[in-house]
């Protein structure tokens, strides 16, 4: 688990391995600015103040170029923390929400637990 600290809101959550910043925040009940959640629209764009992020899935260069990334820009909807990170959302709000992520599914009924 990596710590994800959001400033200036001063919120800290823990990201599971492979979990994006947006998904970790959602799991803790925080709605940061995003639209497509797929790295294509740039609505979630923020600044990385500390730590390292990884993009396991391709992000279009037109949305986040290597130069912008080097200057600290990031896309929290696709960025997965490699270390503890500090993300600056600037004047963008964080809203309290109850959000459900994709549930874990057992495709084979025989594997299902419980009564």
């Amino acid at each position: 688990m990596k710590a994800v600290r959001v400033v200036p809101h001063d919120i800290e959550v823990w990201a599971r391995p492979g979990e994006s910043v947006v998904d970790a925040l959602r799991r803790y009940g925080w709605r940061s600015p995003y639209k497509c959640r797929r790295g294509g629209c740039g609505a979630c764009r923020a600044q990385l103040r500390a730590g390292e992020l990884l993009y396991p899935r391709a992000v279009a260069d037109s949305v986040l170029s290597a130069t912008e990334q080097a200057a600290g820009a990031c896309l929290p909807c696709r960025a997965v923390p490699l270390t503890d990170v500090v993300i600056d959302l600037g004047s963008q709000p964080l809203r309290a929400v109850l959000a459900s992520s994709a549930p874990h599914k057992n495709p084979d009924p025989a594997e299902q637990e419980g009564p």
Partner: protein
Amino acid sequence: MAVIRLGYVHVRVTDLAEARQHYEQTLGMDTVHEENGRTYLKSWDDDDHHSVVLEEGGVGLVKFGYKVTDDGTLETIESKVSSFGASCERMSKGDNAGVGDGLRITLPSEHVLELYSEVERLGTKVGKLNPDPWPRDLRGIGVPRINHALVTTEDPALLERFFRDVLSFRPAERLVAGDEDSDLVGSWMYCGDQPHDIAFVKGANGKLHHFAYEIDDWSALLRAGDIMSMDDVPIDFGPARHGITRGGTIYFFDPSGNRNEVFAGGYRTGPDFRPITWTMDQAARGINYTHREIDQDFLRVVT
């Protein structure tokens, strides 16, 4: 001379395999052809060769195609394009798999629009002889056919004039910020009797806001929403009703962030339809009549 309808939308996707999963398994389209890193797909009730092309690398619109009648329409339009002062070139058979010769126009909004009358017919899945109303083997939402696209332009008034003067489209609904031509914020235009075949709102040139599939009705919309939840598809908004067009809608995103829509209903227009006007203070109701509130990003977020 006439433009018939939106034929195809050609978009970039960051990951072709993920995109195919979405368009084939969630939406229910079939891949009909693959070449040069492009995947061509059609929906079950599309008669022509394809209606969506996916190209790996990046995100956003490469171009879109509208089908025209085969009666010298292309020549007529070609001369109108040059009188208007826009640029176009001849497009050759094979530039797009299954599509014949045509015209490739660069719109005043910098989008590339192709016009063609000849296209290979692969046929609908139910056929043309004593057909069933729908095929039994649909996947996911099972979208029947493509319907319209909405793009952004720096100058909506200029683009509206282009579609009217060159392509003989008419506005069904107009969103205005005032009485001047330059106050046009958006226009929903048709070429047949739909409420819109193309729409555009003010924004950056060359960008795609969404393209839409037509589905049957409210029940189909709700069922589409169920499939989206099962497949964890990000929803923009909906199910809701549009004030503009009166259609039912869900906006959602493909795995690259291109916005899609499933659209149901809407009224019929025709050559004598008088355009409807929406003022900016009622824009939220025009776009989402049910909730009367839209995220500011709804109009800003494009690919």
